[in-house]
């Protein structure tokens, strides 16, 4: 299911993006990259992506989280699967003082830590895509989702 599947990476570290991109392209995904949340959001609005790989700590803080919140509120983008890639698993907790350690930022997300083993990355990406596929199939089967 890789070929024709479009992924977007939003991460402000070009070296990291390069490495991730080459892993994903090696698995026949089509990959675009944005190096800041603003460009990333713009890309999401103007083109269709099957999955977003999102860094948390960008710019002057956890701008990735701001972006995720924007996605959640956007009716068109709220269903896109998001793989959060972060170097600060535990520190994310700081941003949500009253919440459990791993809050879900969008309805569908998964989290991996930087650096991520290529095998694990591909596995998570694939799992998220398949789950999204299954959801889509379910909701098109039923006229009334609930």
């Amino acid at each position, binding site marked *: 299911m890789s070929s024709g599947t479009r992924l977007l990476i939003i991460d402000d*570290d070009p070296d*990291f993006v*390069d*490495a991730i991109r080459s*892993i994903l392209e090696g698995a026949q995904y089509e990959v675009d990259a944005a190096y800041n949340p603003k460009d990333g959001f713009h890309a999401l609005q103007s083109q269709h992506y099957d999955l977003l790989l999102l860094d948390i700590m960008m710019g002057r803080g956890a701008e990735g989280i701001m972006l995720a919140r924007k996605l959640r509120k956007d009716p068109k983008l709220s269903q896109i699967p998001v793989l959060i890639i972060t170097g600060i698993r535990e520190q994310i907790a700081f941003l949500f003082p009253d919440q459990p350690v791993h809050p*879900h930022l969008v309805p569908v997300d998964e989290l991996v830590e930087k650096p*991520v083993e290529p095998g694990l990355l591909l596995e998570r990406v694939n799992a998220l895509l398949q789950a999204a596929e299954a959801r889509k199939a379910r909701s098109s089967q039923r006229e009334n989702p609930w």
Partner: protein
Amino acid sequence: METKSKILIVDDEEVVLDSCTRMLESGNYQVATASDANRGLELVREFGPDLVFVDLKMPGKSGLELLEDVRTVDATIVPIVITGYATVSSAVDAMKKGAYDFLPKPFTPDEFRLITQRGLEKRKLVLETLALRREKEILRRNFAAIVSHELKAPLSAVQQSLYVLAGELAGHVTEDQESRLARMKSRIDGLLKLIQTWLRVISADIGKIKESFRPVSVQLAISNAIENVLPLAARKNIEIVSAVPDRAVCVYGDEGTLGEALVNILSNAIKYSHAGSKVLVAAEETEARVSISVSDKGVGISQEDLPFIFDGFYSGKSAPDAERGCGLGLAISRRIIEAHNGTISVESEFGEGSTFVIRLPRLEGAPQTPPSENAGIREEAPKGGLE
């Protein structure tokens, strides 16, 4: 110093005010005077002095009262009392109330200037200490974010590229080259882990683990920890003997971090043991507590090291060089145990070995019921997803 030091003198005797002002004229000072405590207090607020000289005996409000007022306005102002009685007891009283020094009347210009100098130095130290403390607090608060981003990000990027490179080169490199790649990966891994560990020590939020507290079996925690360190023990041919009660003993805690603490203590015991010796792990329960002890017959800890071993970045001098770590294991363990409302202590004889004891509140009754003080944070993380 660029700005003039501000000195306020409060005395009901005009002649004292005048002469003091004159004595300071030659120096780089800005002087204000008041002839009673009320005016003095006003000037403390308006003039913002570095140093206040206060006559203890004044009509109306006393000098001692003024000292207390000064303290509430700005505790960094250095107060010095002038005492006409020259009685030691009134000066001592004043010093007890926070006066930094005292000036007995009559005094010579040299005495006065000397005490002024000393007082200003004190003021400088007080301000510096405050600034440092503030800086430290800011650093501590921001450190987690700074360290994680500024140090971890580049390392992660390097490691990520290495993963890719290793994949791309697979089958095209010699065995030597492959092992070099593997060593690079493992060294970077080590560094990443060190940063992560360090973050855990300094981050203020180890209390977060309380959110995932649930009943934890002590036996299970111990056997998991032993399993974890077995390879390390095997390398030095060390036998780990465990003596735990048959009856299930539970504590209320976080399995992951408790295990981490146990593994830290156990690996230390192994590290500092002589090859071929034994490490004993025992658990005992009393009515209220569970204590877990780890004893070794290793190198021990010297008396001079003992008080510091739970502080971060302290790796004992008695440690064999090859075994010297980053000195964080015990600091982390202590933070973990303290977050569990427990204590960790050590007894050691240099050259004879060490015994570490972890004491934790025992969980009574049905394992499903958390202690009442934790009832408010019993909410569990939402199901699914992030493991």
